[in-house]
């Protein structure tokens, strides 16, 4: 279980007026945090910054003992693949890989980690746990959307990460599947203690979160006048 701490963070996309500025933000280790706000408010950008996918121009991102900003590209990649599980709105499964191969994808794309027999068993147990035990050989196009998102969650968990970042994980799901996916994420958080950060604009799914960071109430805005940007924090 590791906490996340952001301080004096500034991020601007190249050749864009968008500016994300966070003075201070701390996410406790093992907590369930939802980041909500309208589209384009910077939720996903924040997630990408924390995951080390983007590099902030200024400020500090501290995840546990690691300062993401000070890491090299390869260190951030290795850190991401070993410590962070990513779940996306569009599931982002690889269409030519079957369920099992999609779950084991993190191992295939990073030569620094190779799956052990134990990892394979773990992948299979995750699939079983998610109700995908009989669908290991199926390609994504033969899975329902709920099933696809469960495969994506398995893929996020297969490297046994300390953090789970989910970007609109229920955005493409029907209410029944939304509940199921959230229950799964919360169960994992409760059972394994991973820090769960979920970005969503759906306010109906916020019930189970310990903390909600609402970008709409902040003065953090995409504004043409970047000099006036600032960010406030609200605790639920």
């Amino acid at each position, binding site marked *: 279980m590791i906490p996340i701490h952001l301080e004096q963070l500034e991020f601007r996309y190249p050749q864009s007026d968008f500016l994300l500025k966070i003075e201070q933000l701390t996410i406790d280790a093992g907590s369930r945090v939802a980041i909500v706000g309208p589209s384009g408010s910077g939720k996903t950008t924040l997630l*990408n910054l924390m*995951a080390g*996918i983007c590099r902030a121009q200024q400020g500090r991102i501290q995840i546990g003992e690691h300062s993401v900003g000070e890491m090299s*590209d*390869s260190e951030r*990649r*290795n850190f*991401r*693949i*070993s410590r962070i599980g*990513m779940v*996306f709105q*569009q599931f*982002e499964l*690889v*269409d*030519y*890989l079957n369920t099992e*191969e999609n779950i*084991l*994808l*993190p*191992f*295939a*794309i*990073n*030569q620094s980690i*190779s*799956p052990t027999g134990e990892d394979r068993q773990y992948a299979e147990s995750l699939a079983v746990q998610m109700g995908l035990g009989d669908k290991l050989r199926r*390609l994504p196009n033969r899975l329902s959307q709920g099933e696809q998102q469960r495969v994506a969650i398995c*893929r996020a968990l297969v490297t046994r990460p300390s953090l789970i970042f989910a970007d609109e994980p229920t955005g493409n799901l029907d209410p029944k599947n939304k509940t199921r996916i959230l229950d799964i994420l919360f169960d994992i958080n409760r059972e394994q203690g991973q820090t769960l950060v979920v970005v969503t604009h759906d306010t109906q799914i916020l019930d189970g979160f310990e903390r909600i960071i609402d970008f709409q109430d902040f003065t953090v805005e995409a504004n043409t006048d970047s000099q006036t940007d600032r960010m406030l924090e609200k605790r639920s």
Partner: protein
Amino acid sequence: MSWTRLVIRYIQYHKLKTVVLVASIFLTTFLPLTILILLGEFNEKIISRARSTPMVIGAEGSPLDLTLHALYFSSKRPAPIRFATVEEVRQTGWARPVPLYSRYTARQFPIVGTNLAYFQFRNLPLAKGESLSRLGDCVLGSEVARQLQLRPGDRLLSDPENILDLAGHYPLKMLVRGVLEPSSTPDDWAVFVDLKTSWVIQGLGHGHQNLAEETDDLKVEVRSDGTLQATAAVLPYMEITDENIDSFHFHGETADFPITAVIAVSPDEKSETLLMGHFQGMENETQLVRPVVVIDELMSLVFQVKKFFDLNAILIAMATLFLLILVLVLSQRLRIREMQTMFKLGCSRGTLLLLQFSEIAILFLFSSMLVALAVWGVWMMAGNVVQSLLIGGQG
């Protein structure tokens, strides 16, 4: 699971694209290579055959037709010349003549009437059986024997020249006396008979029942002067056997009998020059050609034409390359999300490039292997293909 498996799974999943790309690469490279091999083979075979055939004498007309006929027994045969030409060459003492008369076919393979000297000249040892011994015997080239599944002792029927020519030439059932060793030359594709046997096929020699002993009134008519008149009911024998071989005879002067070419082999250059002078100086209907000169001229023309083929192949290859680049670029664009996901999951840009490059590399490798396989096949069959092309579609 490793990155290589990712690439293979990607290729497997996009079967149609893979097949189209592999086929494009295959065809673009295979066709020019095939032409290159066949032309190389053509050049090598024809030059080699021409070099081993010092001089050819035949009827006036196209030197190329005469050369190809004498070298390859091509179906486009020159006009016949008299057998006396053989004796004429021999009488000069400047060359050993080898007569050739190729007019008929047996199961589409050319029947080459010649004499025993031909086998010695071409250095054609027997693989099975014996050499030509008697009228009606034939010795098969290795390919003829293989394709027709014939062995010494079997019979082979000559093809009628014209099925409507009912009153003319009757097919002759020949006895397979021997089979030659393979030589990778046109001799593998020919049916060799004694010159006299080819004249029998033509009807210049024949055998029939002894009319003096024939008692059937339908076949023999006794004239008022006591002579016997054979009627049309007397058919010539279509097969030469121990029983009827004695009845075979020829009509007319052998010297006037037809042949299509004489190969002349001189012991030295001086004799060769003298023989050439002899035939050039004569105002008759024959010509003497040196195959190596004729073929050199032909090949220089062929290689001129090949330059256009080469240019065409280069243009096609470039067009295909551009299309391949387009297809690959478009397909990489379609994979941007997939690549982004992998990047987000922790994949390095180097690995992403490796994945994309490997796909192209595997496609090229696979295509190259197919091309190599096909080219190998072409290379192995090139001799036969060139042979059948030169013989004129026979065989």
